[in-house]
């Protein structure tokens, strides 16, 4: 392994530390490396002596963690939890990882290549705030109560949330790619200012999905209420099934292949929406308000069980039916 590779990986594992401390550690290792080379070791030998990046980082982080826990006997457990981002044998009540710059590299794995090792357990609050660099999080066999993910400046963020119960999920994405596994959620509140959010088939109570730019791709969703707002960018959805779906396109584009709701409200201020509703046209009461844009639907009221409300100011709305 080249020193620069070793260093990069080593730095990833120091993500939990303050930037200043991280730089100090890297300077220390840089000096060690230079001294090893000056003493006649090859790059390979010098790097080999450092040991695996994870092991080297863990020693330093364990020391940090021990210090936190050691400050007050009463908070020993909390101290352990604080560094549980690296190893933990118990349940974790709250895990918050904050990174200013640099990288947070967290993997929850039950397989090989363990850098964060969680047993099957519950995490009640989970929050990752990252301003730059890379975030890679993998979860296996972990249940969440709250997931709060936020990234800053165009990091590459890959998050797999398992198909376990995750009551509330808040996502704020400004860049990169966020992949949300399908599964059960309480409420989902996702705001995509950039980058792309992809989800599997999600089950939830309320879903609020906003994209100011960037792309949202929903494989499928079953919900009580859904509010999707496309201010720019694009949303594509497979099947949307629930009580109420409220899709608002201010600019950009929305496409939903199969909307199966009692009440669908679609508002196009500009941009374009292409929505396919389940059932036949006759199954729906339709309320249509059109200003300058185009809409292929006419209003009708026959006291149907289902209703669709369409408002088009500019842009175009195209509503199709599966039957």
């Amino acid at each position, binding site marked *: 392994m080249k020193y620069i590779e070793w260093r990069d990986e080593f730095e990833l594992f120091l993500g939990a530390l303050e930037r200043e401390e991280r730089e100090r*550690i890297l*300077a*220390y*290792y840089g*000096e*060690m490396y*230079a*001294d*090893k080379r*000056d*003493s006649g070791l090859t790059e390979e030998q010098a790097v080999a*002596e*450092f*040991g695996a990046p994870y*092991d*080297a*980082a863990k*020693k*330093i982080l364990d*020391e*940090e963690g021990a210090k936190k826990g050691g400050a007050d006997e009463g908070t020993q457990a909390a101290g352990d939890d604080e560094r549980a981002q690296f190893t933990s044998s118990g349940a974790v009540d709250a895990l918050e990882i904050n990174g200013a710059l640099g990288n947070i590299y967290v993997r929850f794995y039950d397989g090989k290549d363990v850098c964060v090792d969680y047993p099957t357990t519950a995490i009640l609050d989970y929050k990752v705030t990252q301003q730059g660099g890379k975030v890679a999080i993998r979860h296996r066999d972990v249940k969440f109560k709250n997931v709060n993910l936020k990234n800053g400046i165009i990091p590459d963020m890959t998050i797999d949330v398992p198909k376990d119960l995750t009551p509330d999920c808040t996502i704020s994405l400004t860049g990169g790619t966020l992949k949300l596994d399908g599964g059960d959620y309480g409420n989902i509140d996702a705001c995509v200012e950039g980058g792309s959010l992809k989800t599997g088939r999600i089950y939830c109570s309320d879903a609020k999905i906003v994209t100011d730019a960037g792309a949202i791709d929903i494989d499928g969703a079953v919900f009580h209420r859904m509010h999707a707002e496309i201010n720019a960018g694009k949303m594509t959805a497979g099947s949307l099934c629930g009580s109420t779906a409220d899709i608002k396109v201010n600019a950009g584009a929305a496409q939903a292949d199969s909307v199966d709701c009692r009440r669908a409200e679609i508002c196009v201020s500009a941009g374009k929406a292409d929505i396919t509703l389940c059932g036949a046209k006759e199954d729906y009461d339709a309320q249509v308000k059109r200003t300058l844009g185009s809409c292929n639907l006419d209003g009708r009221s026959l006291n149907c069980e289902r209703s669709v409300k369409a408002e088009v100011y500019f842009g175009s709305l195209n509503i199709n039916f599966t039957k």
Partner: protein
Amino acid sequence: MDIQIKKGVLDACVLHALKGGESYGYKIINDLRGIIDISESTLYPILKRLEAAGALKTYSREFNGRLRRYYYLTPAGEAKLEEYKDDFEEVIKIYKSIFGESK
């Protein structure tokens, strides 16, 4: 080794390595070879801990076109080393009375 005992031993070793004058990371590790094997990752927290405790001070100096951090003992560090010496003598006494005969 018990973590607390180990910490004390390691601290004492590093203080000892600096007793002869200022030194730097790589040299400290090499000087201690033969007494105790410590890795870079072990040494870093010790140096940080000793510095925070006021036992040593550091400064950076150019060497071979790069910066190298040097460590030197403070009077408090020297006193700490003496303290360890007394502590260890006591430990040796206890050791002898517990294990002495069978050894």
